[in-house]
């Protein structure tokens, strides 16, 4: 039986010093009106704020200095990300590039990709989207039909990606494509490519979400040329790369802080002298949150040591997203409110948006069902 482990991690002193610094930075930005703390921190796209984060050294923190990074630890990076999310900072523009794409380019990208792209990500001026899902390939990622065929000096990509968050605003996308015909091993023959979205030959069309917001896109490639040095790793390594990328994607504080601002506003609305039931529910959420935070930091510690905590990351996301979804469901009963749209910054609006966004929490980055399958595999059941 696989043993999942959430070993304790001691936050180094440098990380705690950094925490004060980040908190002061965020408070300063709020005070000067740069942003209003937002419920969807990591899906709020704000290039100005991202550039400031770059100047502060809060992006690409673990990368080597030669690529614009800051050579800090995974735990220091963790502190920055959780402070940003807890503070409701609009980190959406650089989030994906910092969380996963840049990390992958550093590890598997060509020297040209590293030297031309990473410094711009770290400066907070270059943003990424994820190009995994397709119309007929969501949870079943190995079924991708986007194809890349070899041509002189590179590859020609044709196909369609969907649910591509931010592609209308980002600079690049990492596309997973089939580069060899499907064999018995359906995970073989896949490759990841860095695609420059500003080039002609790629079209981006909005897919509006259930509340009318524009986050998702459909991205279509038609014989789109990608140079050899924009291939990630070796051709055929795509599945391995995608799997390791997802461990970074799944275990962070973004998997349990999506409705943190609603929790805060609910505590405010309930007041300093809660009745027994409200006190119970607040206490229960605080207990869950403290526990999730510990689990998530433990995974950051494992990533720091170069381990691949796939099952632990899946556990954090499964338990964490269930927690995020419970917050609006519970407080709507404690603070009777008709959830509203167009009500400005009121509690009704915050509640309304949390309810409308909640279904996405347990779908994006791997559905709950896929995660449970991965956990089951880790437990030796499949």
């Amino acid at each position, binding site marked *: 039986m696989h043993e999942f482990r959430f070993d304790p991690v001691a936050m180094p002193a440098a990380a705690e010093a950094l925490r004060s610094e980040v908190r002061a930075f965020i408070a300063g930005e709020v005070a000067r009106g740069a942003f209003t703390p937002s419920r969807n921190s990591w899906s709020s796209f704000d290039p100005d704020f991202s550039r400031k984060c770059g100047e502060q050294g809060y992006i690409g923190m673990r990368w080597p200095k030669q690529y614009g990074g800051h050579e800090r630890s995974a735990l220091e990076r963790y502190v920055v990300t959780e402070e940003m999310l807890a503070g409701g900072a609009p980190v959406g523009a650089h989030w994906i590039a910092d969380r996963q794409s840049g990390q992958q380019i550093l590890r598997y990208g060509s020297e040209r990709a590293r030297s031309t792209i990473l410094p711009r990500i770290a400066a907070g001026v270059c943003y990424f989207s994820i190009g995994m899902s397709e119309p007929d390939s969501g949870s079943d990622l190995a079924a991708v039909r986007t194809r890349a065929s070899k041509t002189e000096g590179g590859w020609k990509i044709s196909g369609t990606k969907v649910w591509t968050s931010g592609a209308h605003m980002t600079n690049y996308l990492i596309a997973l494509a089939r580069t060899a015909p499907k064999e018995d091993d359906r995970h073989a023959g896949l490759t990841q490519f860095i695609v420059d979205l500003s080039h002609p030959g790629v079209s981006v069309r909005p897919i509006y979400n259930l509340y009318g917001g524009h986050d998702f896109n459909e991205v279509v490639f038609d014989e789109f040329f990608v140079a050899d040095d924009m291939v990630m790793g070796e051709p055929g390594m795509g599945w391995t790369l995608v799997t390791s990328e997802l461990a970074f994607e799944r275990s962070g504080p973004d998997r349990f802080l999506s409705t943190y601002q609603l929790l805060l506003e609910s505590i405010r609305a309930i007041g300093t002298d809660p009745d027994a039931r409200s006190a119970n529910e607040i206490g229960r959420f605080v*207990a869950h949150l403290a526990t999730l935070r510990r689990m998530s930091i433990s995974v950051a510690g494992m990533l720091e040591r170069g381990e691949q905590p796939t099952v632990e990351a899946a556990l954090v996301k499964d338990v964490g997203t269930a927690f995020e979804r419970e917050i609006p469901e519970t407080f709507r009963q404690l603070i009777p409110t008709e959830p509203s749209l167009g009500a400005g910054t009121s509690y009704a609006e915050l509640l309304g948006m949390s309810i409308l966004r909640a279904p996405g929490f347990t779908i994006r980055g791997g559905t709950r069902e896929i995660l449970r399958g991965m956990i089951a595999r880790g437990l030796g059941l499949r």
Partner: protein
Amino acid sequence: MSENRNDLLNTVDRIIDEHCARPLRESAEAGEWPAGLWRALEAVGLDRAALPEEAGGSGLAFEDAMLALRRSAYHATPVPLAETMLAGSLLAAAGLAVPQGALSVAPVNTSDRLEFVHGSTRTSVVGVAHRVPWGNLCAQVVVVGELDGKDIVGMVSTSGSVRGVEQNLAGEPRALLGFDHAQLTTFAALPGGLARLQAGGALCRSVQMAGALERALEYSLLYANERVQFGRPIAKFQAIQHMLAQLAGQVAAASAAADAAVEASALAPDEFAVAVAKSRAGEAAGKGAEIAHQVHGAMGYTREHNLHYVTRRLWSWRDEFGNEPHWQRRLGRLVAAHGADALWPMLSGL
């Protein structure tokens, strides 16, 4: 895991293997004191594992003592190990000597209070303590209460004070102790004694629940891989896989919460971390036991299968030393009183 910790776990495993067979479990539930098992635990110093070395401890770190307790719970060991550890640490905290033998603590019921009174020649205790764990089988209990407006911890013989014995759902004795001017054999001031007893007890139960949940998951994985229906092990059915994944999530959360509380409580129980642990592990206990039983089907509902030894403890321990709402409410009131803006600093420790 370090080699020392592995040795510690192996020691607990070996003692259980040699001294805790099924007949002993059954006789313990029938009310008999498991003398051989307890002697074996004492022989390796586990009863004193949570004490500082200068108070007669075995030189283990507090984390390691709690690891041993967790392992004893994993084995559903029918002894007052948690209570003895807790009683000893209360005495040691007040600078009192810790006697040999199994000990319990009172009051454990969150609404019970004991009164201490000065006589001309002695100081004694008055009052009723409900459901004192193993209180009928321990010769002495450590009691906390007030004397002249000060928090006091003391020790009293149980002889003549046992008014009745009930059991928790796992068949562990829970005694009604009535003290009518029973003499304290020793006592000293311990500021915040009652809070310390309750939080210390809640910490132990959280650690024990984490251990019992770990075992419930292990039993469930074994059974799902063995049990064949419709021509394949039930572990191959997605419905079962998802249930077990959820069980794993509860086990992971209970463990993480208990670990955090242990880490924060090396010197004295940390109220915030303990409240988090007891609420979270208590919730996991109920949800986890439900899944474990569902996976085991009718087999897990029998006395024959061992699953009930851990699940009956989970269903008991979650309500002892304060149930989930008790600790959630304390957390909730604390957070609300400090206001929303204080929550993140509280969680992140800065």
